[in-house]
C-alpha cells in the first residue's frame, strides 16, 4: 500500500468528519442569502379534487407577505424582460421512456410545478406564499381560501386498473402508464408445461418513505445584472438538476444556471429528482429579484418526497424432477403515484425485471409489469430501486420452493447457482464475474449455521420460536453504460466526469461529478489519488456539488460513484502521470520513454536522476525548461468514463430471528452479511454502507409501511406513525466480504451502497416464516402481524 497507509484498502478515518462532529457542516438550510425571503407552500388536503377557485387576497394582505402565486402565475418570462408570456413554465418530466408491449409510448400525465386546475394527491402543490419570515409565510398560507370540488380517488395498487376506478389523469385509460414485458413468453410457457413442480407466491412489496434525516431545502436566486440564476438545493446530482431545469422546465439557459448541492444529509434516491419547490423558488426569485428559500418540514417530506417500492406481484417458479430451475414467470403491478417522477418509469422495468434471474441459471424468464397511476405521492427510486423488489421475488420463491420440495434451502440455491462467467441471463444482463458459492460458504460460517439447532432448542425451551432465513442477492450497479441505457429508453448518458488539478505547490484538487451525501467520497476518492500519485492524503481535496466548479457530472445513485466516478478520476490521473513524464523529461533532460513513475517520483531508468511529484508540478507551471510549442505549461487533466457493462455485486445475507408467540415481538437475534463488492477502497466505509443498507432492509421487513387509507389520506405521515428503525430494533451486524474483481472498470469495483437494502428483506421474512412454519405473512412483519400469524400456525382452524 502506498503513501503512508492512506492508499487503496486502508481504513482511513474520514477527512470530512471534522466539520460534521463539530457542528460546522454546511447543509442547505444553514445557508442564508442577503435579502432572502421565505416560501411556504399551500398543499392539497384532498387526494383528488378540481380547483374551482383560489382566493389569495387575505394572504397577500397579511404582514410581511411579498407575493402569493398559484399555478396560473408560473409562466415563462419574455426574454430580456420582466414581463410574463402566456406560456406556462415547463412541467416536471420523467426522463426514461418506456414502451408498452404494443409499442405505444408510456402515458405521461402533465405535472405542473403548481397545480392549475386539479390536485391529484394529498400534499399536491396548490399555491406558494413568499414573505419576509418563514412564520409570516406559514401564517399567510392559512389565509388562502381554495374552493375544491372533491373527486373520487383511487389509492389501491392492485385495483387501480379495474374498470370504473376514477381516472387520475383525464384520458389515461385504466390509470395505466404502460403494460411492459421482458423475456421470452413462449419459452417460459414451454418450461412450465414440462415442470415437475411449480411454486406460486403472491407478494406485496410495501410502500416506503425514504426519510433521509435532512429534509429537502431549496434557495433560488436571480442576478439581474447577469440574468443568471443560482439554486442551492439538497440534490444527489446537481448537474442533472441543472440539465432538467434548463432543457425541460425552461427556467434558464444551462450556462446561466448554477446549481449547488453543499453538504447533503442523506438521499437514498429521494434527492435524485427535480421537485416542484425548486422550480417555484427559482421562478419566484426572478419575479421578485430576491432570494427565495424553502425548507421542508418532516410532514411535507412524508407527503411529497417521492416514495419507494409499492409492488403487487404474482410469481411462479418451475423446477424439474432433479430440482433444477426451468423457468420463472412474474406479473407485477407497480404503483407510480399521481405523477411520473424523474426516473419513476425505469424503476419497475429495467432496474427490476432485469435482475429476476438472481444468482441462478434460469433458462426461461417472462415478466410483465403494469404501471399505474393512483392518487398518492409519486413513487420513484429508493435505495436499491427495483433490485430490492426483484430480490424479494426471487429469494422468497427460492425459499418457498425449497420448503415445498423438502429440500435444504442452501442446497437448492447451490444447485442452481450460476458458476461460469460471463453468464447471459434471459433478461438482458450479462453477469461478468462472481463466486456465489464462496459468499455462501463464508456466510454460513460467520452466521454459525451449525449452531442453529442448539439455539433453536434453547428458544423452544423458553417458549419462543426461532427461524433462519437466507437471501442470495445480485444487483446491477455502476449505472451505467450509456449505450445500453440509451437503447432501453434513458434520455441521458450515464457516464461520469472528473478533473484533476495539480497546483504549482503540488497539492491537488479533484473535481468530480459524483456527489457525496454520506458516502465519504472526500476520503475514498482522495485515497485513490494518494495511492496513484504517492502523495500524502492531506494534500488532496475533493470538490463536488457545484456546477460552477465541477465541469460535468451525472451524480450519485445506483452505487455508481466508485465504479463510474472513481474510474473517471483514475483515467484523469493516468493523463496527469503521462504529462508529468513529459515535464520531468524536459527538466531532467532525459527521453520521455526512459521515465518511470513510482512511489511519487519520476525516475530516469537506470540512473539516480529523479524528480519528485511536487517538484514536477512546480516545473509544469514555472515552464522555464520548455517552450509552449513543444509542451504546454500547466498540469490539469479531465476525463469522462463510460463503462462497458453494469457491475454485479452479489452476496448472501443470513437472518436469525426469535419470536415471542404470545406477543408477536420479533427480535433479530443475528444478522450476517457477506458481500462481493469487487475491490474495496476503504473497508471501514464499505462496512458502514452495508450496516445502513441492512437497517433500511430490516426496516422494510419489520417496521416501515406507508399507508394511505381508502379515502386517500396518508395515515403514516410522521415519525409518530411511520416506524423508522431505531437503535433498539437492530442487532450487532456481522459483516464479511469476498472479492472477485469487476472486469469492466480499471479499479475492479462493483459498488456497495444498496446491498443491505436489497438483500435484507427476504432474509428477514424467510427467517420469520421458517420460525412460524408457514408462509402467510406480509411486510412489514409487525408484532401484531406476527402474533396473528403465530396464532394461525398453532391453531390452524382459528385463523383471524
Amino acid at each position, binding site marked *: 500500500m502506498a503513501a503512508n497507509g492512506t492508499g487503496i484498502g486502508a481504513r482511513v478515518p474520514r477527512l470530512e468528519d471534522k466539520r460534521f*462532529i463539530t*457542528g460546522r457542516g454546511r447543509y442547505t438550510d444553514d445557508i442564508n442569502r442577503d435579502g432572502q425571503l421565505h416560501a411556504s407552500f399551500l398543499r392539497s388536503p384532498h387526494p383528488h379534487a378540481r380547483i374551482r377557485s383560489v382566493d389569495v387576497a387575505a394572504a397577500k394582505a397579511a404582514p410581511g407577505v411579498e407575493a402569493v402565486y398559484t399555478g396560473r402565475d408560473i409562466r415563462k418570462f419574455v426574454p430580456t424582460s420582466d414581463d410574463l408570456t402566456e406560456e406556462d413554465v415547463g412541467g416536471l418530466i420523467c426522463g426514461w421512456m418506456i414502451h408498452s408491449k404494443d409499442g405505444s409510448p408510456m402515458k405521461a400525465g402533465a405535472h405542473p410545478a403548481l397545480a392549475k386546475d386539479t390536485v391529484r394527491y394529498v400534499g399536491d402543490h396548490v399555491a406558494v406564499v413568499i414573505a419576509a419570515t418563514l412564520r409570516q409565510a406559514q401564517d399567510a398560507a392559512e389565509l388562502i381560501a381554495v374552493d375544491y370540488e372533491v373527486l373520487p380517488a383511487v389509492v389501491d395498487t392492485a385495483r387501480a386498473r379495474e374498470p370504473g376506478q376514477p381516472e387520475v389523469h383525464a384520458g389515461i385509460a385504466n390509470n395505466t402508464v404502460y403494460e411492459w414485458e421482458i423475456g421470452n413468453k413462449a419459452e417460459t410457457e414451454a418450461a412450465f408445461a414440462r415442470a415437475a413442480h411449480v411454486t406460486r407466491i403472491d407478494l406485496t412489496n410495501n410502500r416506503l418513505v425514504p426519510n433521509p*434525516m*435532512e429534509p429537502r431545502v431549496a434557495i433560488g436566486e436571480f442576478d439581474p445584472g447577469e440574468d443568471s440564476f443560482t439554486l442551492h438545493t439538497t440534490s444527489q446530482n446537481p448537474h442533472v438538476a441543472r440539465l432538467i431545469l434548463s432543457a425541460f422546465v425552461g427556467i434558464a439557459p444551462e450556462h446561466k444556471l448554477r446549481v449547488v448541492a453543499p453538504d447533503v444529509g442523506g438521499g437514498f434516491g429521494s434527492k435524485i429528482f427535480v421537485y416542484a419547490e425548486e422550480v417555484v423558488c427559482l421562478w419566484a426569485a426572478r419575479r421578485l429579484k430576491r432570494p427565495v428559500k424553502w425548507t421542508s418540514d418532516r410532514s411535507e417530506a412524508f407527503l411529497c418526497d417521492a416514495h419507494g417500492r409499492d409492488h403487487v406481484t404474482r410469481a411462479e417458479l418451475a423446477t424439474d424432477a432433479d430440482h433444477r430451475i426451468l423457468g420463472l414467470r412474474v406479473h407485477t403491478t407497480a404503483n407510480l403515484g399521481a405523477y411520473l417522477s424523474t426516473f419513476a418509469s425505469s424503476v419497475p422495468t429495467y432496474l427490476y425485471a432485469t435482475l429476476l434471474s438472481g444468482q441462478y441459471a434460469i433458462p426461461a424468464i417472462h415478466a410483465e409489469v403494469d404501471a399505474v397511476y393512483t392518487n398518492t405521492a409519486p413513487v420513484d427510486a429508493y435505495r436499491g430501486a427495483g433490485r430490492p423488489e426483484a430480490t424479494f421475488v426471487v429469494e422468497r420463491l427460492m425459499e418457498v420452493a425449497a420448503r415445498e420440495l423438502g429440500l435444504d434451502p442452501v442446497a437448492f440455491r447451490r444447485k442452481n447457482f450460476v458458476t461460469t462467467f460471463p453468464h447471459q441471463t434471459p433478461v438482458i444482463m450479462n453477469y461478468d464475474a462472481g463466486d456465489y458459492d464462496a459468499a455462501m460458504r463464508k456466510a454460513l460460517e460467520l452466521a454459525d449455521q451449525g449452531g442453529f439447532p442448539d439455539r433453536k432448542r434453547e428458544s423452544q425451551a423458553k417458549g419462543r420460536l426461532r427461524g433462519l432465513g437466507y437471501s442470495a442477492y445480485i444487483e446491477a450497479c455502476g449505472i451505467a453504460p450509456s449505450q445500453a441505457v440509451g437503447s432501453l429508453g434513458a434520455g441521458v448518458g450515464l457516464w461520469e466526469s472528473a478533473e484533476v488539478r495539480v497546483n504549482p505547490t503540488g497539492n491537488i484538487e479533484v473535481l468530480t461529478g459524483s456527489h457525496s451525501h454520506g458516502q465519504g467520497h472526500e476520503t475514498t476518492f482522495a485515497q485513490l489519488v494518494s495511492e496513484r500519485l504517492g502523495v500524502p492524503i492531506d494534500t488532496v481535496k475533493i470538490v463536488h456539488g457545484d456546477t460552477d466548479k465541477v465541469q460535468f457530472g451525472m451524480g450519485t445513485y445506483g452505487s455508481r460513484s466508485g465504479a463510474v466516478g472513481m474510474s473517471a478520476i483514475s483515467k484523469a490521473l493516468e493523463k496527469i502521470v503521462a504529462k508529468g513524464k513529459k515535464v520531468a523529461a524536459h527538466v531532467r533532460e532525459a527521453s520521455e520513454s526512459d521515465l518511470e513513475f513510482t512511489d511519487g517520483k519520476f525516475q530516469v531508468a537506470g540512473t539516480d536522476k529523479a524528480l519528485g511529484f511536487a517538484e514536477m508540478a512546480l516545473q509544469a507551471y514555472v515552464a522555464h525548461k520548455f517552450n509552449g510549442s513543444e509542451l504546454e505549461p500547466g498540469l490539469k487533466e479531465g476525463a469522462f468514463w463510460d463503462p462497458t457493462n453494469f457491475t454485479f455485486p452479489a452476496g448472501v445475507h443470513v437472518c436469525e430471528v426469535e419470536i415471542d408467540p404470545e406477543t408477536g415481538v420479533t427480535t433479530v437475534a443475528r444478522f450476517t452479511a457477506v458481500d462481493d463488492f469487487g475491490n474495496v477502497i476503504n473497508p471501514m466505509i464499505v462496512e458502514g454502507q452495508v450496516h445502513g443498507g441492512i437497517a433500511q432492509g430490516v426496516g422494510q421487513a419489520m417496521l416501515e409501511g406507508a399507508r394511505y387509507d381508502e379515502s386517500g389520506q396518508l395515515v403514516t405521515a*410522521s*415519525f409518530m406513525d411511520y416506524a423508522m428503525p431505531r437503535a*433498539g430494533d437492530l442487532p450487532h451486524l456481522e459483516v464479511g466480504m469476498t472479492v472477485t474483481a469487476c472486469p469492466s472498470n480499471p479499479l475492479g469495483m462493483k459498488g456497495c451502497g444498496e446491498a443491505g437494502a436489497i438483500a435484507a428483506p427476504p432474509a428477514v421474512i424467510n427467517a420469520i416464516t421458517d420460525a412460524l412454519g408457514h408462509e402467510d405473512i406480509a411486510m412489514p412483519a409487525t408484532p401484531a402481524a406476527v402474533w396473528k400469524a403465530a396464532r394461525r400456525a398453532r391453531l390452524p382452524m382459528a385463523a383471524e
Partner: protein
Amino acid sequence: MAQVSMTVNGKAVSGEIDPRTLLVQYLRETLRLTGTHVGCDTSQCGACVVHLDGEAVKSCTVLALQCEGAHVLTIEGLANGSELHPMQAAFREHHGLQCGFCTPGMIMTAVDMVQRLGNELADKTIREELEGNLCRCTGYHNIVKSIAAGARDMAAAPMKQAAE
C-alpha cells in the same frame, strides 16, 4: 416581541424575539449556530438535542423564552478549542457518522448518557438510551461502538467541562 437572555456556549446572549420562537430556531436563525439540526416536527428524531443547564433536551420542544437565564451547550461548544471532546473523536474513529445530519444530536445525547450512567455502557443500554435519536445512514452499529468507546475515553481523559 419579548426579551430573552441566556448563556450559550459560555457566551452571554440576549435579544428581542417573537414569543413563539423555539430554542432551536433561536440558535439556528438568530445566533446562526447551525450545528443543531431540525429533522422532524414531532420531537422524534433528536437531531436538535442540546444541553440545557447540563441536561440533554430536544431544542425543538423548548421555547427560547423558557431558557431565560439558562446555560445552553450546543455541538459548537463541546470541543475544548481545537481539541475534540472524546465523544466527538470517538465518532470519527469508529465511523459513527455518514451524512452527519443526526450527528450533533447523537453526540450531545451520548455525552448526556455518560454523565448520567457512567463510563462503562453496555451495548444494550446504549441502544435503549438512543430511543429518541434517529439515524437513517449507519444502522446504528458504529454509533453504538462510538458511544461505548467515547464513554471510556471520557473517563480516561476527563476534560474540563466544556465552556458552559
